[in-house]
């Protein structure tokens, strides 16, 4: 056993003692080994002369009237705790480092932008415009996503209703079917709904026609969807109305990007969402960098 290993395991075994006591004991053995070396003997010989390690530990613990098993149980508990703490510390350090790196990058990037645009007032104006642009994308992006999902949901529901309506038409005569198709083909307006209602009242007299309740359900559903769609559009367009010119530009840019990704590339939904998230992250980082750069410019 080397000196380091010996002193280390001695420390470990004496965990139960006060730190100053442990230091005191370890110092004594350390200095004994040093004296041994000074007298021309080896480290290993000095440690061998201490005899059986476990008995040595037991002897020391007895000097404090501490039971050996109690001490070793205590040591095990402490070691487990330390392991847990180590794990927690390490993982939190890793996460902390990650954030540090991101913020370092943002800081560096904003400094670069700042030093690049520092020279003239014109450059500073461009910087502010760029910030507004990215910032508006950042604000509008999630709105578009949300609105897109809502519209897609509503369209999906409407298609479902359409299918059901077409299905019910199969049971009508060919003339009625044609009549209904023209109604379905129309944009859903109050007029067309009235027309459908009229149609219904006519079909009531025809014995072959579908039972009234299901037809009515289908049209009420459509009506409801229309109301919901309009309400949603009004509610969610209020922020857009409030947003300024750059908001509109941002909206357009984000919408084009979204449509491009969805339609042109034919990626899976998962891939699209991942791309969008990455995009949002990039926008977020860029925006933060620009804000910091502007703050630096303003504070100077």
């Amino acid at each position, binding site marked *: 056993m080397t000196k380091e290993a010996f002193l280390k395991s001695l420390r470990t075994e004496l965990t139960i003692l006060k730190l100053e006591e442990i230091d005191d004991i370890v110092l004594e053995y350390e200095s004994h080994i040093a004296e041994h070396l000074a007298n021309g003997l080896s480290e290993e010989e000095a440690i061998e002369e201490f005899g059986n390690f476990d008995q040595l530990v037991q002897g020391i613990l*007895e000097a404090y009237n501490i039971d050996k098993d109690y001490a070793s149980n205590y040591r095990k508990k402490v070691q487990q705790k330390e392991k847990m703490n180590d794990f927690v510390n390490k993982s939190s350090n890793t996460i902390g480092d990650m954030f540090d790196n991101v913020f370092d990058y943002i800081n560096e990037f904003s400094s670069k932008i700042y030093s690049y645009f520092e020279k003239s007032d014109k450059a500073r104006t461009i910087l502010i415009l760029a910030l507004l642009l990215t910032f508006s994308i950042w604000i509008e992006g999630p709105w578009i996503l949300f609105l897109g999902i809502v519209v897609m949901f509503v369209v999906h529901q409407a298609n479902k209703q359409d299918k059901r309506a077409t299905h019910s038409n199969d049971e009508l005569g060919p003339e009625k079917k044609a009549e209904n198709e023209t109604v379905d083909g129309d944009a859903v307006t109050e007029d067309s709904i009235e027309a459908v209602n009229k149609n219904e009242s006519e079909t009531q007299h025809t014995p072959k026609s579908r039972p009234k309740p299901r037809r009515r359900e289908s049209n009420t559903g459509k009506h409801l969807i229309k109301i919901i769609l309009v309400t949603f559009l009004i509610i969610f367009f209020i922020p857009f109305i409030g947003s300024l010119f750059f908001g509109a530009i941002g909206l357009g840019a984000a919408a084009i990007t979204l449509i491009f990704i969805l339609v042109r590339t034919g990626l899976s939904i998962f891939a699209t969402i991942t791309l969008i998230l990455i995009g949002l992250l990039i926008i977020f980082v860029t925006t933060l960098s620009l804000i910091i750069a502007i703050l630096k410019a303003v504070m100077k």
Partner: protein
Amino acid sequence: MNTQFKKGVLEIIVLEIVDQSDRYGYELITEVSKVVDVEKGTIYPLLKRMTNDKLFTTYLMESNEGPPRKYYKLTALGKERLVIIKSEWELFSSRVNDFLKGSANND
């Protein structure tokens, strides 16, 4: 030598050596080894116990050989203890010797 004997007399020897002058661990063990052959590891726990029992006080002094040396100094309580334990030992050993001589004479 029988380890049980050693354990019993070790305390007297250590007290006596420290009574002569203040000693640091390595020196003390060397002195003890001149009297009885003992495992070095057992002396430090003994010194620790005796220090905890307030028979010794300790102080550190710098050394050229490495870490500072810890010196042991006998306390008043330690001196008392030495006197008591010495007389106990004398009584004990003379009785044992007398007994052994007596049984030898009877042979």
